[in-house]
Each structure stands twice: as C-alpha cells, then as structure tokens.
C-alpha cells in the first residue's frame, strides 16, 4: 500500500529512506521501512515501544548501521557518511549533556571540535553560544553545570547544543519523555515555534499520539518495525489505515458487522456503507465521542444506558451495546434527551471506519 501524499515532489524532498531493515540478532527492529520527509518538515515517528522508531532515528544519526536499504539526505548518500560528518543535531532522550562541562561549554562543544581551518575564533564561539542561550531562554545559566538544571532546562540546553552546529537535520528522541505534563505542554509549543523559526527538517520520536498529532506536519506510524501509515495528523486521525492505527491514535469502540451490496449492517441496524468499505464480515471502529443519539424507536445501535457521569467539560456515558460494555463521550453541558441511566437509546456513529474482519 502506498500512503504517500500525491503532492510529494522530489524537488523539495530532504530525507529519503528506502527499504531500511535492521535486525538485532534474530529480533528484527526495522523491516523494509521507506518514507520521505520534505525540506523543513516536522515529521513525527510514532509507535509503541519496540516499534523500531528509535532505531530508525539512530540510523538517521549514523549511530546504527542498517542491514539493508538506503538513506539519502538532500540527494546525498547518508549511509556512507560517518556520524561526525552528517551534521545532524540530535537531542537524546535523557539529553546526554556532558556532565563535566558547563552549559556554555556544552553548547560550544560542536564548534570547538572542528578542524582548525573551520573552527570559529574564541570570540565568535562565545558570541554564538550567547545567541543560542538567548534563543533557548537560558541567558543567565551559561556557567551552571547540567546537574544544577531542571529537566526542562536541560532539554533546552541539549537543543541549543544540537543547533550550535547549524545542523542540516534535527533529530529528537522522545524530547518530552522525561518531563512532567505541565512543562511538556509548554515546551511543545515552544519547540514548534523554534522549528518554524530555524527552518530545519526535524524528525522526532514519540510514543505519545497526542504529542505527535499536535506538533508534527506529518506523522509516520510504526509497529513491529514496519511503517503502517504516513500522513498529516488529520489524514491519519480521520482515515486510519488499519485497526491498529485507529486504536493507537485515540479511544476506540469496536463492533462486528457485515457489508453487503453497499449496506453496512451492525446487529439490527442497517445503514449505508462508507465509500470504499470492504465486502463481507467487517470490524467497525468509531470514536466514543463521534456519535449521535436517537430515541429507542429510531435508527441506530440499541444501547442500554447504565451510568452517566460529568467529567470536566465532557459527559461519560456507560452503556451496553449488543451485550458489550461501551463507554461513550458526550460533549457540552446538556445531555441528549433520553440519555439517563436505565433507559434505552439508539446510538449512531457519525464516522465509522470499516475494516475487513480477521
């Protein structure tokens, strides 16, 4: 299957990954992964742990060598370049700041290790470090050591250090993984703004679907070392390619059904099948909040309401559909008429996704 967008033109392609495979002993970490990133794109590699996303990132950095496949950046064969010549800025999951160097020395490192002919002068380096400290809003902390910083500050130092070498590509491994929820949300916005200003192609790894959908231009979803789907956050959310993607990107309700002659039948409810639905036995997936309610004698899935509870701005509706416990979510303060414990209603998924059963 090909999930690439039709408007991909090779003219603005930055990163091309073709048929990359990598195994650790007998465990395959990556299986024939192909994907591209456009110039200045913010690409998320999303998947559960063990999906191969970090391995792929390390292949891009040059810290792992794939068993097969091709990686090109700006048309150049990346795999034949050693790590140090790739000019990728990498931010590690635990930041990997040099613990015995100050913040300023950390940021300057990439400049000070350059060949003498390419090395900026001391004052140029100091100047650059100062500008980067300003950029990451840590101007006063240049003389501190990493152990004297908070998690969020360390992450920003790691980012400044990666940006100091003027990278051709920025690689971020679970950039918010080690931070608490509040800091994480703030940094997310900030990072996106920084990316837009710096204009560097960025690939970041995350297991958090909300983070990927919120932050990225496009999301690559991996599972068991394989690329399952690649698309904009909207595309993958609205049209998940497989039940796995549907499930991984948000809450899911699932019902068995049958598609015959353009009609979709779930239990005693018969409706028009969505375009392109497979024939025969199917699994129908829908989001718990993408439903409308109708009176018990109307059309839809018959649901017995068991409990209704206000949860912040949402209403959680516990009900049973075809004997299965299902948790639905209604938005807004007012409940649809008839939705109260002990009553039966009809539930109609507004945007069901239909996958071949099996």
């Amino acid at each position, binding site marked *: 299957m090909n999930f690439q967008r039709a408007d991909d033109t090779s003219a603005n392609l930055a990163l091309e990954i073709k048929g990359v495979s990598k195994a650790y002993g007998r465990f395959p970490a990556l299986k024939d992964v192909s994907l591209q990133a456009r110039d200045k794109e913010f690409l998320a590699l999303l998947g559960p742990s063990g999906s191969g996303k970090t391995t792929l990132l390390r292949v891009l950095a040059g810290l792992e060598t794939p068993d097969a496949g091709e990686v090109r950046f700006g048309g150049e064969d990346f795999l034949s370049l050693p*790590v*140090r010549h790739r000019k990728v800025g990498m931010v*590690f999951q635990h930041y*990997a700041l040099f613990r015995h160097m100050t913040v300023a020395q950390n940021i300057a*490192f990439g400049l000070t*290790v350059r060949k003498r002919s390419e090395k900026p002068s001391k004052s140029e380096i100091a100047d650059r470090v100062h500008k980067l400290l300003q950029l990451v809003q840590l101007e006063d902390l240049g003389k501190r050591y990493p152990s004297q910083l908070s998690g969020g500050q360390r992450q920003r130092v790691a980012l400044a*250090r990666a940006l100091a*070498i003027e990278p051709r590509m920025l690689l971020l491994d679970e950039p918010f993984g080690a931070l608490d929820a509040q800091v994480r949300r703030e940094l997310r916005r900030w990072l996106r703004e920084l990316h837009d200003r710096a204009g560097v192609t960025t690939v970041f790894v995350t297991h958090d679907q909300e983070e990927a959908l919120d932050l990225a231009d496009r999301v690559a979803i991996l599972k068991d070392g394989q690329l399952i789907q690649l698309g904009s956050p909207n595309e993958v959310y609205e049209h998940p390619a497989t039940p796995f993607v549907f499930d991984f990107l948000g809450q899911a309700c699932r019902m068995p059904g049958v598609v015959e002659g353009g009609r979709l039948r779930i239990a005693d409810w018969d409706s028009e099948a969505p375009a392109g639905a497979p024939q025969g036995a199917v699994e129908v997936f829908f989001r718990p909040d993408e439903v409308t309610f109708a009176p018990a004698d109307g059309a839809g899935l018959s649901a017995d309401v068991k409990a209704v509870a206000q949860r912040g701005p949402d209403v959680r509706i516990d009900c049973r559909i075809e004997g299965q416990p299902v948790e639905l979510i209604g938005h807004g303060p007012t409940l649809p008429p008839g939705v109260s414990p002990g009553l039966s209603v009809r539930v109609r998924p507004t945007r069901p996704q239909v996958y071949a059963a099996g």
Partner: protein
Amino acid sequence: MNPTIRLPGLAPLFLVLTLTILGVLIVLPLGVVFASALSQGLAAYIEPLTHPDALAAIRLTLTVAAISVPLNAIFGVAAAWAIARFEFKGKSLLVTFIDLPFSMSPVVSGLVWVLLFGAQGWFGPWLQDHNIKIIFATSGLVLATVLVTLPFVARELIPLMQDQGADEEAAALTLGAGGFTTFWRVTLPNIKWALLYGVLLCNARAMGEFGAVSVVSGSVRGLTTTLPLHVEVLYNDYEFVGAFAAASILAGLGLVTLVLKSVLEWRHSGELSASRRH
C-alpha cells in the same frame, strides 16, 4: 542519603566492638611497626634506610610500580571500555577472568611466569639463547605485579561506565567530534576520578605485593629485592630495626593511600562507581 536508623542500646555495643577490633588488629600493629622502627632512636631508624641495599629496594619498588601501574591503567580503561560499550560473545567470561587474580593466591601469579620463562620453563631455553632475562630480573617483577594488580582499575571503571551509558559519547560524535577527541574530551573526564581511585589502589598493591614477586625475584640483595622482600631479608637476618624501618615506609604508603582514597570518596563520590556512592 539514607536516614540514620537508631536501634536503642545496640549502637554503643557495636561501636565498642568495632573500635576494639580496629584497635587490636590495625592501630596496635601499626603502632608496633613505628615504635620498633624508632626504638633505638632516629639515627638508628634513618641509618638502615640509607643503606645501598635499602635504597636499591626503594628504587626497584618505584620502578616496578612506575611500569606496572600505567600498564594496568591502560588495560583497565581498554577492558572497561570494551565491556561497558560493546556486546560480544564471551563478555561475561572476560569479566570473570579479570577478577581471577583477586581469587587466586598471588604465589600462583608469580609461579606462572617461572613456568613460562624460567630456566626450565617453556620459553626458558629460547630466552637463554637470546640472552633475555625475565625471571630474577626487573621484567619478571613487573609481570608478576601486573598480573596481581590486573583487576583494580578495570573493576573500578566497569560499573561506572555501564552506569553512565554511551549517550554522551554518541552525542559528541553527532556534534562532529572524532573518536580520539571524544575519548579525550568526554570519556576520560567522565571517568577521571574513578580512574584515579583505581590507580591509587593499584599502586598501593603494586608497591606492597609480596607473594607473587617473591617467586620471580630470587631475592638478590640490591638487585631484585623490592621493599617488601627487603623487609623479609632483613627480618630473617635478625636486623629488626632495619626491617621495621623499611616496613614503616610501606605502612606510611598505606596511610597516605588511605587518606587520598578517603578524600576521593568524600569529594567525588558521585563520579566513582555507582556501588561506592553514599
């Protein structure tokens, strides 16, 4: 930092017990060494230490340590690097082997060299034909010392490097540093205190080693006697003041090592092995 737990009544008991054992087994003998050495006055203490044989023994001890300690430091860093950074077959076997000198009698560590390089040893005739002397010579003393002290540096570094992980080195590479630069500017500074700690312990053992060295030395006075062997030779000759004077140097070395070791543990506990943190 662990909170201190007080068990009522037990603390004084344990404290007295510990201090008694410490006093009888360590402070008392140490006191005896210095008291005996100084029993006939300062002049009598200095005199045997300035004897040519004693000076030769001190010089030899320093020479052996000066060669074997750097060798062990290099080996220790290399072994720790290999074990902490790479996966390979037989790794756990290698770790076990590094520890072998600790569990084996030092006499064996000396004897193996005699069996290899002695006159009746495997390579003995060949060495004799080429006029190379290993046993009963400085090179034999170095070999024996290296083998006995092999684990010190490696065992200090392995847990630390495993604990630190390879991310900082990987980061240095992505930032454009070469392998050598990365080692000098990232790896080495991160392990420097643990390395120093290991070198310190290694040095104390190298200078104080008796068993292994005595097998390969032949105890030729003024030529192949290190300080510990010199002590034995004098003691067997009933030259007690001289023996204790030489022993006091070794004891002093032990005390200096202890102080330096404590300073390291106190100032840089976080950068020593994870197991040594407090």
